[in-house]
């Protein structure tokens, strides 16, 4: 039976809470918050049916700034909690969020296995190539010669982590990159990611104006929509091999079997207990 009462269409503002973000003025994460709420509005996900799950870091504060269900857990474990929630409650729309440190350093192992497992969740990583919350240390995506941190005064000397390459090789079925300076483009990517059946990964270049002020230049460097979308793994890998990390768009999308056991009661407890009987 169709509902008699026509529900009012929700706008992106309906998905925002009245809680003031802790972010610095000019932080890219404001745009990502806008992009996520726009995607939820685009898909008209009922607020009570959505959950935003995060770990620790500046960007991981996002759940509190939305008006849907949320979980601000511990450092690096957003994908694990999001996986548990989605598998146990497949009816929900689950979005995991966080930064490059949370996702690729302390949570790196979960990133690999989330890509492999292909649970139907969307993972949005706000990448600013720095640890902001602890006041500016190198992250896995920081260039090796960045000397801005007292912790690594000579730079890290370590090759940066390439999130899109890792996602591809770990088996992610949807891989994209967006830019905080293009919130409408980012919203479109996140919408597409949420519509994708399976694990969708969206890296958003999100400048840290405080600890990496040079990133304000990104708006001049980023090339919107330059990535060529493909369902061919070697073409996607070849694109990344010649990519400088500043192009945006959907890189790769394929349909793979989604990890979602059917939760259906077929036996009674008594039937199980009979197996213990002699």
């Amino acid at each position, binding site marked *: 039976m169709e509902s008699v009462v026509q529900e009012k269409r929700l706008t992106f503002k309906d998905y925002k809470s009245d809680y003031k973000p802790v972010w610095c003025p000019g932080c890219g994460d404001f745009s990502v918050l806008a992009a996520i709420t726009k995607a939820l509005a685009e898909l008209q996900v009922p607020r009570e049916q959505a959950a935003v799950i995060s770990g620790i870091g500046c960007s991981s504060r996002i759940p509190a700034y939305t*008006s849907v*269900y949320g979980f601000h857990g511990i450092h690096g*474990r957003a994908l694990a909690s999001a996986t*548990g929630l989605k598998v146990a*409650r497949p009816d929900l729309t689950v979005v995991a969020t966080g930064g490059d440190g949370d996702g690729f350093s302390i949570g790196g192992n*979960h990133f690999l296995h989330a890509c492999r497992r292909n649970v139907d969740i969307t993972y949005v990583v706000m990448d600013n190539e720095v640890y902001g919350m602890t006041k500016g240390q190198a992250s896995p995506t920081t260039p090796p010669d960045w000397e801005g941190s007292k912790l690594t005064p000579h730079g890290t000397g370590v090759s940066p982590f390439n999130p899109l390459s890792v996602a591809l090789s770990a088996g992610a079925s949807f891989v994209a990159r967006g830019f905080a300076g293009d919130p409408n483009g980012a919203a479109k990517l996140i919408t597409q990611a949420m519509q994708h059946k399976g694990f969708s990964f969206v890296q958003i270049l999100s400048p840290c104006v405080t600890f990496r002020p040079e990133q304000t230049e990104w708006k001049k460097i980023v090339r919107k929509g330059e990535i060529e979308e493909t369902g061919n793994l070697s073409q996607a890998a070849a694109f990344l091999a010649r990519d400088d990390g500043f192009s945006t768009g959907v890189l790769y999308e394929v349909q793979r079997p989604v990890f979602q056991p059917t939760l259906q009661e077929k036996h009674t407890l008594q039937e199980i*207990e009979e197996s*213990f*009987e*002699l």
Partner: protein
Amino acid sequence: MTSQTVSIAITGAGGAGVMTAGQMLLDAAAKAGLYGLMTRSSGPQIRGGEAAAYIRLSSQPIDCPNDTFDVLFCFDWMNVDRFAAELPLRPDSVIIGDQDALNPPEMITRSVARQVLVPLGETAKNIEGGRPNMIGLGILGELAGIPLEALQAILEKVLHRKGEVALNASLEGLRQGMQLADDLEAEIGLNLHLERLAQDKTRWSLTGNEAAGMGALRAGVRFCAAYPITPATEILEWLAPNIEKVGGTLVQAEDELASINMVIGGSFGGVPSLTATSGPGLALMTEALGLAVSAEIPLVVIDVMRGGPSTGIPTKSEQSDLNIALHGLHGDAPHLVTAPTSIADCLFTVQWSVHLAEKLQTPAIVLSDQSLGQSRNIIDKPADLAFIAERDVVGDGVVEYKRYALTDSGVSPMAIPGTHGGEYVADGLETAENARPSSAAEDHYAQLDKRQRKLLKFEYGQHWALIEGEGDIAVVTFGSVTAPVREAIQRLAADGQSVKLVALRLLAPALPDAFEAALAGVEKVLVVEQTHSKQFYRYLRSEYDLPKQTDVLAKPGPLPYRPAEIVAKLKEMI
């Protein structure tokens, strides 16, 4: 003549079929109306190493190993000395070996026990497709007075898939083994026949790990995420196919950090959730357990303890995770810690722990251990005490919802995702009542008080401890050690000396009033535990008033407590 209980050890090289014969003997004994227990032991090899099955049969329910073995049956001498410390024998015990096996080790030749040789290999060789372990099963079955029909029924049940030829070879081996035993009984005057009482109750055969899994399902657990680890893996292997049958699921996670956080996610979604692990895994989970305390997410972690620290002795039992279970979380993080008092009680304790965790919206750590988890016990079918997951929740349309409202009970109704109007963010950050992060002193004080209050105000009822008997002397213990303590107390009672048992099922929170009442009139206490540093005794000292005359029996793994050790200690104190 009949005896009340008989203990049999079977050893042999990998592939000798020790475990198969042991399990068949246990099941056949159960079919014939006996109770029993089987513990497995094996060398360090992953597969193909020497193995030992320790079986105790009895006319009455039993759930711990006896002091010594009546029979040690070595299918071969291969590395049997590895098990020497686990095989206490008496002068009237009998070692049975194969007459064709060469070079028995010193442990055998210098043993105080009597020794007989039987043509094990030779008899098997004369049967087409015959196997020595089936001859051995026949010998042991006959010695223990288990009727042929019971042994045959088990053989048919286990071997029907292997085809008629294999089954017939085994049945023939069984019959010839039984004939060999007749000669043996006459030769050495060995008679281990047990009195078989009428069987009026349904009997179950299960391990503590299987019992724990069943307890989880009975309570309503429908989501599990876990990472394999000895000796907890069987809980997961049992749960994976069975949780599906009742509409749940088990996810094999990439590590313990993932499993506990997945469980937090599942439970946040309103589905009763559980994981199982052992010491190293519990150590990895402790940060997330603090999150579950803070965000008030109910969940259960079953820790099947093994020898520690670090990798320790993965295949042997110890109770030395008590400290980390009680005190491992950072911050002031009140939570539940429970322990089953027997193999069968793994079912009830897990079920009750799920119930408590859900009711109190906090994590519960269940301290099982290797000796409970991996031993198989024949028991009377346990009653279902109907403890199920019952979480206080809010319904659709709630307004101005306060997730962490300061209630009298300390429990605040939870909004489950999908509930309209209940949208909130669960957080590891300290929060105000409305779930918004807060570093204000008054919010921290109020929430700390609330999280403690809910545990302290709850009525735990009679199940907080297993209390038996009376007397001015009491044993206070917990977990797997309870079984040998109970048997020690029964033996003393048979001698006219009564000793009280207080086995704690609820370790945290401590219940000083209940404990004081349990020890009313008790002048002397013996604390028995399986740790090196007296962790349990120290915990009792920190939380409870103990009589001046309190003594401790503490020994680490890997060797199990034998009832006689506890009897001896109690006799010293009486």
